[in-house]
């Protein structure tokens, strides 16, 4: 007798095999699509995957919807940009430091939201991100206001370099988050989301786990934010804007939250769809947002759920 799913090694290996195939595809894509325009678009995909997956660790598992992921992205993006502009530190330093600063932000937001749930949690996370946004606008002599900060060192010299740099970072983040979600850490986070009282009554220091989840989520989003700043050679207030937080939520939900894998699908799909609908002109965003509403209405558990069920039906495993 052996439990299926979770801690059964065979299933884990099969999933890891899936991830390695995905990694191989990511690494081989430039062989086919070498146009800088395509590579820039795929760079965006990598960036959004990192944001959506790190958001998922926090919200998909503990069930508290964070509306402030942009706090980490913008915070680390601007911190990295300032360090680069004033101290001349390169990406090899600003990325990890940006991540650490975002983790620190996670510690702060996590401590402020410890006792909060549902709408209250959402409101406070939102406020932190919006405060940062307002700060950027008001203290324009430091943060550049609406125009942001330009003239940041590039990440890599070519689009291909940016592609590989972001791709490898993304794969590392996915692997880390995935293994984490399948470990006791993920199990405990889920138990907190289901019933925090019972989790604490089972001897779990829920405060510690919630804060650590916040810090890890912040770290990955922060690294992504700093990376984005270097790749664009520019950071702007939109990196701290609530529409970025909203976009990340929608990507994760469309893909399927609580799975780490789902948000990957959501981030790729929505980033590519947003671009490929460009021929529709001014109706692009309308079609895009109607599709999002339709997906959430008809597949509330996300596309991953639909794909898994479809796959099971084909293989004949449907119960």
């Amino acid at each position, binding site marked *: *007798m052996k439990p299926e799913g979770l801690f059964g090694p065979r299933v884990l290996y099969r999933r890891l095999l899936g991830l390695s195939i995905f990694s191989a595809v990511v690494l081989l894509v430039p062989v086919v699509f070498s146009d800088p325009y395509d590579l820039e678009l795929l760079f965006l995909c990598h960036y959004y995957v990192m944001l959506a997956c790190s958001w998922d660790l926090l919200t998909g598992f503990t069930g508290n919807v964070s509306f402030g992921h942009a706090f980490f992205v913008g915070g680390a993006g601007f911190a990295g940009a300032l360090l680069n502009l004033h101290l001349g530190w390169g990406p090899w330093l600003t990325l990890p430091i940006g991540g650490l600063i975002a983790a620190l932000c996670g510690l702060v937001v996590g401590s402020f939201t410890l006792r909060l749930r549902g709408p209250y949690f959402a409101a406070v996370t939102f406020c932190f991100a919006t405060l940062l946004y307002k700060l950027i606008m008001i203290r324009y002599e430091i943060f550049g206001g609406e125009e942001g900060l330009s003239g940041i060192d590039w990440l890599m010299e070519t689009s291909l370099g940016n592609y590989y740099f972001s791709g490898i970072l993304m794969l590392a983040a996915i692997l880390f988050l995935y293994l984490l979600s399948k470990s006791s850490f993920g199990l405990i986070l889920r138990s907190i989301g289901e019933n925090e*009282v019972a989790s604490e009554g*089972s001897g779990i220091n829920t405060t510690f786990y919630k804060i650590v989840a916040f810090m890890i989520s912040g770290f990955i989003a922060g690294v992504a934010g700093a990376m984005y700043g270097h790749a664009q050679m520019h950071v702007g207030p939109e990196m701290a804007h609530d529409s970025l937080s909203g976009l990340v939520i929608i990507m994760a939900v469309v893909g399927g939250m609580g799975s780490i894998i789902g948000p990957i699908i959501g981030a790729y799909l929505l980033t590519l769809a947003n671009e490929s609908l460009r021929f529709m002109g001014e109706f692009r965003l309308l079609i895009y947002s109607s599709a999002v509403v339709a997906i959430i209405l008809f597949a509330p558990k996300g596309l991953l759920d639909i794909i898994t069920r479809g796959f099971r039906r084909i293989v004949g495993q449907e119960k």
Partner: protein
Amino acid sequence: MEAILEIKELSKAFGGLEALLNFDMEVRQGDLIGMIGPNGAGKTTVFNLITGFIKPDSGDVWLKGEKTTYLKPFQIVNRGMSRTFQLVDLFKEMTVLENVMVPCFSHRAKQRRHNGKKPWKVAIEFLEEIGLADRFNELAKNLPFGELRLLDIARAMATEPDILLLDEPFSGLDVEDAAVLSQAIQRMHKKGQTMIIIEHRLGDLLKLVESVVVIVFGQKIAEGTPEEIMNNEKVVNAYLGQRRQ
């Protein structure tokens, strides 16, 4: 023998209403104690206070010689006292096995697992003990109510407590389920598990326990063997009298 749990003059008021007043109690290793009283008498308040879910206004709790009065719930669990909940809520979207695995990752359970046994194997053992092992892969929300109660007990047991507190384990159970639960409690008692059981279904409880504490209006009015309690005039007046209303 020295008491492993000592409760001294514990008091708690909720906005002027005395939920518990100067409550004393001692529990020794291996005891099986019943705690009875009418609804709202303060039984669950006792549990909430000693497990750290509510902070007392005054008084102290000593667990194995250590003062635990103002510790957090998870710290008290890790010092050896676990409870079940009156409204079993558990981790509904998780499997039966996962429900019992959560406490296996508590500090206490990890420390006690020196031989490097896999957590899921430990969890399966606790499920076997309570008779739920064959349903390990079922989602908790799909379990019938009686099995949910058993699962909650297995969850609490998986923290390997010195004292197990059961909050109304029989309520909502039919006769068959109640019998299964009684047997499980007796098995645990024979293994030397110390337990306190809150109940207001007296029939099931008095057959099980060795001693009974009666709480009425936040105060302990009697303590003794089930026979003594049944013949205690104060108890009959206060408790049974009120039930007749």
